[in-house]
């Protein structure tokens, strides 16, 4: 049996394990239900004329809206539980006492969890396109939906990796989720504050910091891709043109930011697993002693 077969076996197992968790299933259902909300609002409530113009771009709204918050939390939730729950429940031994390298175990879990997330994102993106056509008729530039989907799942790598790392480091899923979510929300809130500080003081330094936040590339890449592909000349209510709550940058900078904030947590996690020395002793004590 070669490495890829073992990784694939663990990845398939991770799908089953994650889907067997009631909380994950509920979160997925919530994400899908939420996908319907903008369509219900736009069809049932009186909509201002200014927003009427987005009807032909509803596929984009439906794709981007859940990504901004809900899908990120789904990714964090799947990632933090991936290894931490196995240690908490003592189920990791079933795999780790078989001829499997630790790195294969982690990679299999990562691939399994991430592809599951990608599948959930595929459902929401597909729903967005289908509902938009069904409810609002022909959509503009919908042929770019696959590109938007790729941009979204690539961007989510950052907080998926952070969640995965904290799960392996703390080995307590609730703590890992709390830490990862805090990092995400903190970065999300801090950005606009720094922009405001820059506006008030005129100091560019604050804007430079924003670009170094872990969510900058992750949050901005999908809209950057949309702008580059088809939104260059449009100004939409949800930020197709100037998006003044964030700092502008190039797509390359966003991709680099995503790669850095994805690879650093993965590197820390692999190092921690292999050395077993970076693990906080408090959690080592909880799950190792018997």
């Amino acid at each position, binding site marked *: *049996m070669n490495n890829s*077969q*073992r990784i694939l*076996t*663990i990845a398939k*197992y991770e799908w*089953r*394990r994650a889907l*067997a968790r009631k909380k994950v299933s509920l979160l997925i259902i919530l994400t899908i239900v939420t996908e319907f909300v903008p369509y219900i609002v736009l069809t049932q409530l009186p909509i201002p004329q200014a927003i009427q113009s987005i009807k032909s771009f509803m596929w984009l709204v439906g794709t981007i809206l859940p990504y901004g918050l809900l899908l990120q939390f789904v990714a964090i939730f799947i990632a933090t539980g991936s290894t931490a729950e196995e240690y908490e*429940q*003592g*189920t990791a*031994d*079933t*795999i*780790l*006492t*078989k*001829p*499997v*390298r*630790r790195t294969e175990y982690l990679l299999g879990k990562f691939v399994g969890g991430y592809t599951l997330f990608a599948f959930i994102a595929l459902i929401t993106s597909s729903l967005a396109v289908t509902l938009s056509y069904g409810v609002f008729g022909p959509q503009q530039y919908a042929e770019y939906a696959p590109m938007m989907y790729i941009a979204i799942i690539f961007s989510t790598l950052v907080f998926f990796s952070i969640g995965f790392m904290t799960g392996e480091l703390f080995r307590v899923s609730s703590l890992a989720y709390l830490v990862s979510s805090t990092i995400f929300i903190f970065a999300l809130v801090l950005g606009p504050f720094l922009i405001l500080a820059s506006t008030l003081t005129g100091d560019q330094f604050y804007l430079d910091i924003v670009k170094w936040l872990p969510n900058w590339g992750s949050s901005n890449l999908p809209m950057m891709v949309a702008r580059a592909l088809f939104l260059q000349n449009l100004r939409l209510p949800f930020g197709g043109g100037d998006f003044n709550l964030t700092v502008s940058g190039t797509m390359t900078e966003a991709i680099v930011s995503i790669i850095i904030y994805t690879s650093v947590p993965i590197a820390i996690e692999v190092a921690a697993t292999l050395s*077993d020395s970076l693990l906080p*002793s*408090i959690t*080592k*004590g909880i799950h*190792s*002693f*018997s």
Partner: protein
Amino acid sequence: MSSEELAIEASQLVKRYRNSALIGPVSLSVQKRTIFGFLGPNGAGKTTAIRMILGLIKPESGSAKIFGIDPSANPIETLSRVGYAPELPNFQTFFTAEQLLNFAAGLHGINGETRRKKVKDLLQMVGIADHSQKKIGKFSKGMVQRLAVAQALINDPELVIMDEPTIGMDPAATIYFRDLFKEIHSQGKTIFVSSHLLDEVQRLCTHIGMIYRGKIVFQGSIAEILAKFRTNTTIEAEVREITPSIVDHLKKLHYVQNITVGTNRISITVKNGEDFRAELAEDIIKAGGKLLGLSLRQATLEDAYIETLKRGAKVE
């Protein structure tokens, strides 16, 4: 003993926990083709020692080798030859028994018809074939333990490590599994069993290691440890009307070490742990006693275990 003859070689393994509990230094040598019983009271560190040996926990110091190879450095080569059944394991409850065995077989690279046959045979062997499609979450403790043994045997391992394998099982199942382990051993396999069921260990094992408060206090064959405690051999004599003259006579005998007198019973601790029942019967009659019965009580593993733990030090 050369390293090539060893299935497990643990050297000075030490693990300290945040709560200051210290396991080790643990040094163990388990010969190939033996049935090794790992004994110790609850919390002595048996499971931790096993987990260090398997590479599941990294020790602070020391090393562990399985078939001469460090399992944490090379899990593919070592763990493909090992089967491990943890104590009351936490398997994923969404699996059915059959799915779990298929998953375990998959990780060993066992596929196709070989896998199907192996899974079917093992479910039959551990007596849960009728529950193969039942979710593990609905299994009793005994059934989970049976499943743990089955998944440990999925790769036809050369070394089977089992942590309290018969815990939660009824007496009939315990006897069945004891015979099963003997059968596996007879195929040239090495079996390492952690247990606190002394009677079971004495019936099953050829060698034992005792751990107490994180330290190994004895390691050797069952015969060796029993020999160390042969001085505890006693003969119980049931005698009608025990008189002082009978007791005085017995006290003078060369093989008698100590005498305890009851209402119509005399308990005689004999020297060198030998069986002096024939001589004692003659001597009681010679002293004018009416002998009703004799029984020999030699040191059991339980006696040796209790005594070793009391001493709390190596008796090797």
